[in-house]
């Protein structure tokens, strides 16, 4: 089961290393991790997507709470949340397939940020599941390069 854990931390050097170290030391599997500033200048948010059963996730949250620099932890599986991710995808565009790729790009509201003879780079920001979907649809055309930004998540309400 995938959990999205949002950890607010003191914005200090070494805090990310501490959180990441905790995960690697205890063998928890991180799917993605992003760290960003917030509206408070000395607080950062680390958004972690981690796989594991309920018991493991419970331990992960308790161990994170022990860290002095961790202020608050919210598990976004528990509540309703808005999740977003950005992806840049460089796709092959053989002349015969160009129109199809354009259509897909339109359907997914992708922005075309680069174009060359042989490839086109799309930029999409959406919820992670939609992005998963687009990547699968583009795969048959040949994905030359792909980079995902990692998920950020915010509670509704």
């Amino acid at each position, binding site marked *: 089961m995938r959990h999205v854990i949002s950890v607010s*931390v*003191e914005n200090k*050097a*070494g805090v990310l*290393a*501490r959180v990441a*170290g*905790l995960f690697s*030391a205890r063998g928890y599997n991180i799917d993605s991790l992003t760290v960003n500033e917030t509206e408070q200048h000395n607080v950062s948010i680390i958004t972690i997507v981690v796989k594991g059963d309920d018991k493991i996730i*419970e*331990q992960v949250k*308790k*161990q994170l*709470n*022990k*860290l*002095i*620099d*961790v*202020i608050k932890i919210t598990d976004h599986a528990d509540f309703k949340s808005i999740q977003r991710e950005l992806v840049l995808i460089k796709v092959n565009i053989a002349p015969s397939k160009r129109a199809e790729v354009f259509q897909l790009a339109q359907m997914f509201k992708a922005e075309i940020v680069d174009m060359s003879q042989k490839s086109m780079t799309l930029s999409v920001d959406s919820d992670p599941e939609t992005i998963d979907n687009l990547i699968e649809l583009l795969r048959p055309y040949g994905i030359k390069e792909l980079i995902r930004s990692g998920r950020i998540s915010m509670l509704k309400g």
Partner: protein
Amino acid sequence: MKLSGADIIIESLTKEGIEVMFGYPGGVVIPIFHSLYNAPFKFILARHEQGAIHAADGYARASGKPGVVLATSGPGATNLVTGIATANMDSIPLVIFTGQVSRSMIGNDAFQEADITGITRPITKHNYLIQDIDELAKTIKEAFYIASTGRPGPVLIDVPVDISKGETTFHYPEKVQIRGYKPVYEGHPGQIKKACELIASSKNPVVYAGGGVILSNASKELRAFVKKTGIPITMTLLGLGSFPGTDPLSLGMLGMHGTYYANHAVNESDLLIAVGARFDDRVTGDISKFIPKAKVIHIDIDPASVSKNVEVDIPIVGDCKNVLTEMTKIVKAPDIAEWIDHLNKMKEDYPLTYNNNTDAIKPQYVIEKIYELTKGKAIICTEVGQNQMWAAQFYKYTEPRTFISSGGLGTMGFGFPAAIGAQLAKPDKRVIDIAGDGSIQMNIQEMIVAVEHKLPIIVAILNNGYLGMVRQWQQLFFEKRYSHTSLAFSPDFKKLAEAYGAVGITIEKKEDVEIAIKKALSINDKPIVLDFHVEKEENVYPMVPSGKSVKDTIMRELA
């Protein structure tokens, strides 16, 4: 008035009421040693940084106050790593200062540079790299607060040399406010009430007390609780002394080398009351078979320890001292006369034994004699392995902070320097290090520190010519292939002691054991090394092999 960073460190330590500091100098800490020259507190120069930190650890365990360490950068700092991990595993409050190269040189592979904050991140409760001299005083206050509160632990402060040499106005903060750190001390009254109801209706309850009781200074409250409820009690290695081992309700230590009756009591129990203990694998063995019938009440200050290994029915997060006090007020004693009789019979039928009908000196006999001749009032430090287990089994501890041993990490070489720290913490007590011929050599260089400060520490070496505990495993599980566990090549410990200016006595005959211990106890101004030549292949029993359960207990030598 402006002070240097080095002066600020000394002033801050003075404000914290520090009485002793342990350490070793080096290049980037010369400015700090410059300020230390006239400090109001004592500085103990070790002969290896590992000796310094184990001494600070022993000091903290014996006194309850945080141990303070100072070492230089690079190799000085990395020499502390084992000691930091040792303190971290047993939750001992330490504040460790390491020097660091100048801020401008950090990351440049500078001379004697090591990323000690990176290296110790997983083994410290918290650590700091000072980037701004105006943060120094506040950081020191925070470090002491974090080290000594909640679940205690080691905190490291890395101080670049340009900060030590810099200057600013000194202001020591009144209070500490850390929004990410708010330990819970009071147990939830609802949970406490539920726990007491469960206790009152139990038929086969057992109290399982660990190191947390001693860290919380809750020994008195534990005794009151056990007295009111009449429930039998077992202790972990680190819990020894939290409850008197001489009391009829004591079942002794549980776990891999615990007593038969402690392990069986826990196995047969219907209610396990865990106080300040963490269900370590040395205690539980195979978790799936650990407490087949019992409900669990778990009192601990660390929420991450609760339900980590074992499902807990009634978790109570809080300080042992507070929770036990509240519980004793409302708890009613359960009706367990039959259970007590059953356990008393088990104690009679399966006591701790060893064969003393030999001419050879048995290591267990040495421990028993030490217990008898010190009237059970000494502070016993141990090394690791067979010596540690026999010291836990054959000496009965009645007061907290009288058994000092590296439990979680199991660090050989811990005992002797820890004894130095313990003796400095308790100058009126007799301090004895129970050692093996292997462990004593790991920090032997600290012997001169004991001589220098006239510390009458008795080092009782249970010299069997082997790395005993490993040899035992090789005998029982590895077809007796004693691969590299023979310590036949060892120094003459008597001569080694004398070279350091200590007293050295070699004991080869059983009748000399008592004489030697009495002689040692009569000396009070220098350390005494007693080299007991004991039975070479004696094993520690009972033994619950690793990953097994109580029914797999090996009680004695099989043919």
